[in-house]
């Protein structure tokens, strides 16, 4: 059974998700096709269909710390199979943006840190610099040596580039990032 604690801010979260995703949450009739097709459902406590119902019932910001939000791999199987045409993946994107904005607790694996490192590298070089962003992410998590045993082989095989990318139109990208920060009045 799904129960929620009603809070003052609850309407606001539901409305924000609606606005950010353009999704009509109330047409969901809980067939659970999204949960059944979700590849990470077996690994999380809160499944996609539960997120949909919690939102509809007016859950507050506590929803933003549910494990599915940052375990979701954005595979979009949920959206593709929803018989009501609900873009569940867009709801997940909206929840991620709100989780950052409303400073929800850092999730396992710290995907927000990875996303920041990824976008920083794009902002700086105009293209992704994999070595740089991996280092920045690992330094940020404090687990520098985790999962690094494959690097020597990858470098030797030329499977990962050592030097930053060159030749990108960095001016345009800088402009885009500047606009994005200006639009949100804060960090990207």
């Amino acid at each position: 059974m799904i129960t929620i604690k009603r809070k003052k801010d609850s309407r606001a979260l539901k409305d924000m998700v609606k606005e950010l995703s353009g999704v009509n949450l109330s047409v969901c009739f809980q067939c659970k096709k999204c949960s059944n097709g979700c590849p990470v459902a077996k690994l999380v406590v809160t499944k996609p269909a539960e997120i949909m119902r919690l939102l509809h019932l007016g859950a507050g910001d506590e929803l933003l710390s549910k494990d599915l939000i940052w375990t979701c791999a954005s595979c979009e199987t949920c959206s593709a199979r929803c018989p009501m045409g609900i873009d569940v993946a867009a709801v997940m994107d909206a929840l991620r943006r709100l989780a950052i904005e409303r400073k929800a607790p850092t999730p396992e694996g710290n995907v927000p840190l990875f996303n920041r490192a990824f976008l920083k590298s794009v902002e700086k070089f105009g293209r992704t610099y994999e070595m740089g962003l991996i280092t920045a992410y690992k330094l940020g998590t404090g687990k520098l040596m985790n999962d690094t045993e494959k690097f020597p082989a990858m470098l030797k095989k030329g499977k990962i580039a050592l030097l930053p990318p060159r030749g990108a139109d960095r001016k345009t990208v800088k402009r885009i990032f500047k606009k994005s920060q200006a639009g949100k009045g804060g960090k990207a």
Partner: protein
Amino acid sequence: MKYAYYPGCSAESTARDMNQSTLAVARALGIELQEPEGWTCCGATAGHQTDRMLAASLPAANLAKVQDMKLDMLVNCAACYNRMKVANHEIAAHPDVRQNVREALDRDYDGSVKVRHLIEVLLEDVGLQTITKSFKRSLNGLKVACYYGCLLVRPPGIMKFDDPENPQSLDRLVTVMGGQSLDWPCKVECCGGGLSLTRTDVVVDLTESILDMAVQSGAECIAVSCPMCQVNLDLRQQDINKQGGKHYEMPVVYITQLLGLCLGFGPDELGFEKLMVPAANILKKVEASGHE
């Protein structure tokens, strides 16, 4: 046949083998490719998880460059292909997104550049007949599990790439190459995508079930068209094997690497040395076909 070729960031790093084999196949089949000058990152998963405006503007910067070239955009990376098409859709359907993009790029872009995946160009523009005529060798009955992943086929309403639940495009190519494409249930399952570094546990879990199904279906290799799928499925076999109980040695190759072999290129011209799990079994079969 000329296209504006958008390689994508991984083409210069983890997917150099994809890029190398794409260029070889294009050369052999008379597909002319021209990179948009100064192309930039599409924003990938981090872009759309962070900001709607970034998610549209980063691809649009490249689409606008291609519009000036008066060509269709050709993409091989499934992730970039997805972001380009979704951005086109967002810009064409939502005037506020188009306005945001206009402000970010300092120019208008209407979302109208045609974005084509290499597989579509091969099947629709070049044609299976022409491709088959250009083959010098065959896959010699090699059993291939074609793996499409998420981003080629989803969201189906926007991607319009093949059947979203049981796609056949890669299978058709494998068949004309003389390979045996396998019916198997994991064609459009997710490998964990961009969670490779952040949630390695999730990626190991998902890739294990895909690899397991490929083995049980009798596959001798998995053919992919997405750099994230390739890296996850290839690289994570080591981690799965280390957990004990499993001994995967399943080569995970780009479809363009298989095509390249059949078109007569050597493995060193197609980046085969970059695979973590070596593809000696494939090379042996193809090599044998040349001496029939």
